């Protein structure tokens, strides 16, 4: 019952809002460059399907690569921190500085440094900067939260530092890491889009650039179509990671265990 409602309620609301939107636009004759009707957006989506899809793929590819790099480098640095207090004290403030600096502010600089001829690399770096920190901070927290008695037990049985890391610390970090990954994947998308805006016209061909381009040409339905695809992409990324989290943790972690058992 409540399971079906979980899907039925938001869908019903969405259909109602779309219907009201369509009716209002038609009833008041609102021009499409102010607010296009859903039907006009759908028409634009279908008409521009090939170019929008290719832009979607560009944005998605950079998002995924930046996310993967953020995961690998975030875990690696967190592990390094957990092994060496000195390295942590030295580097952590800079990791925070990287995180708190708004990506919009440093985008032009990075793009100039990397060069317009390698714009995808610049976008990748910017998206990585945004996505990296939640992985680092969550993994660091997870590694520190490892049960001290279990660490003692491992030591009592002569475990090497590598055994403690692989068999104990990394598995107990998983719930934290997966939470960080959910945040980071969304941020990688945001970072990519912001960086595309920063890159502006020229060589960038992602969804953000389609939005800028359509806005400049007052092709508002097309702009909405690109918005829509970005939202769908964000939701898809979120659900994919939620699914991964559930599949990994369902056997043992409280967060994934259903209440009635």
């Amino acid at each position: 019952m409540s399971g079906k409602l979980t899907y039925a309620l938001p869908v019903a609301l969405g259909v109602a809002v779309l219907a009201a939107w369509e009716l209002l636009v038609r009833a008041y004759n609102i021009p499409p460059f102010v607010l296009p009707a859903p039907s006009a957006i759908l028409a634009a989506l279908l008409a521009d399907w090939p170019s929008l899809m290719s832009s979607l793929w560009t944005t998605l590819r950079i998002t995924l690569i930046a996310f993967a790099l953020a995961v690998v480098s975030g875990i690696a640095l967190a592990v390094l921190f957990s092994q060496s207090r000195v390295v942590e004290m030295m580097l952590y403030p800079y990791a925070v500085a990287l995180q708190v600096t708004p990506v919009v502010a440093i985008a032009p600089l990075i793009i100039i440094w990397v060069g317009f001829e390698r714009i995808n690399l610049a976008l990748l770096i910017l998206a990585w900067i945004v996505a990296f920190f939640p992985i680092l901070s969550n993994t660091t927290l997870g590694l520190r939260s490892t049960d001290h008695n279990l660490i003692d037990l491992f030591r009592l049985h002569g475990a090497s530092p590598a055994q403690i890391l692989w068999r104990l610390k990394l598995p107990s970090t998983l719930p934290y890491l997966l939470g960080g990954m959910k945040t980071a994947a969304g941020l990688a998308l945001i970072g990519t889009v912001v960086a595309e805006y920063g890159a502006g016209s020229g060589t960038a061909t992602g969804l953000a650039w389609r939005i800028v381009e359509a806005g400049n040409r007052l092709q508002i339905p097309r702009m909405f179509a690109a918005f829509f695809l970005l939202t769908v992409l964000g939701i898809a990324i979120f659900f994919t990671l939620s699914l991964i989290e559930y599949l990994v943790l369902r056997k043992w972690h409280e967060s994934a265990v259903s209440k009635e058992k």
Partner: protein
Amino acid sequence: MSVVAELKGVERTFASGIKAVGPLNLELREGEFVSLLGPSGCGKSTALRLIAGLLEPTAGEIVWPNGKPPIGFVFQDPTLMPWATARANVRLPLDLARVPSEETTARADAALDRVGLSGFGNAYPRELSGGMRMRVSIARALVAKPKLLLMDEPFAALDEMTRQELNDDLLRLWRADGLTIVFVTHSVYESTYLSTRTVVLTPRPGRVLAEVASERMPAPDPAYRFTTQFADHANEVTSALRNGMKIAA
């Protein structure tokens, strides 16, 4: 009986300057069931960690006349890896010692059998009750065939019936394996029922205040809890404990 370990003036002072234990003088003899009994915060757990080698004494020394034996450790909480099945948890000490895997599974299952958990090898800790988790923890401590078993208030969090059941099962395992057990508890009745010798510690820093030997060989016999012998023994231990509190006050 040969001496397994001798604590000579062992002290442990923490970085904060608080002395948790000592000087502690104590002899552990082979096949004994020794309970360390004392008020909360008297350094019982610290003493156990010192014996295990998880902490180094800041003064004094622990002598092992016949070499340090293989040690099993049971914590107050079951301390299981939640992502691993009961079998994988029990197998851990063997895995860490790089015992071949075809052997570890059989030995882990045998250890689970011994604590009454046959058939629960594939269960995850969250699927087990508190008492069953503690049984897994005991199976893990026994799987590598230790000579010395150290237990830190293992049954404190369990309900009374489960606790009594586990007391009896522990005595059976102790007798069958010829283990030496050091058992930390704050329950007079538990130490009276289980141990060949109860060592009463003072409030912090923990030192030996009194030793009360049992006149009876501990055995799994629930009826013993209702005998006058048991009551007398418990009274003796209780008054030693009271003395300790008075000295401290």
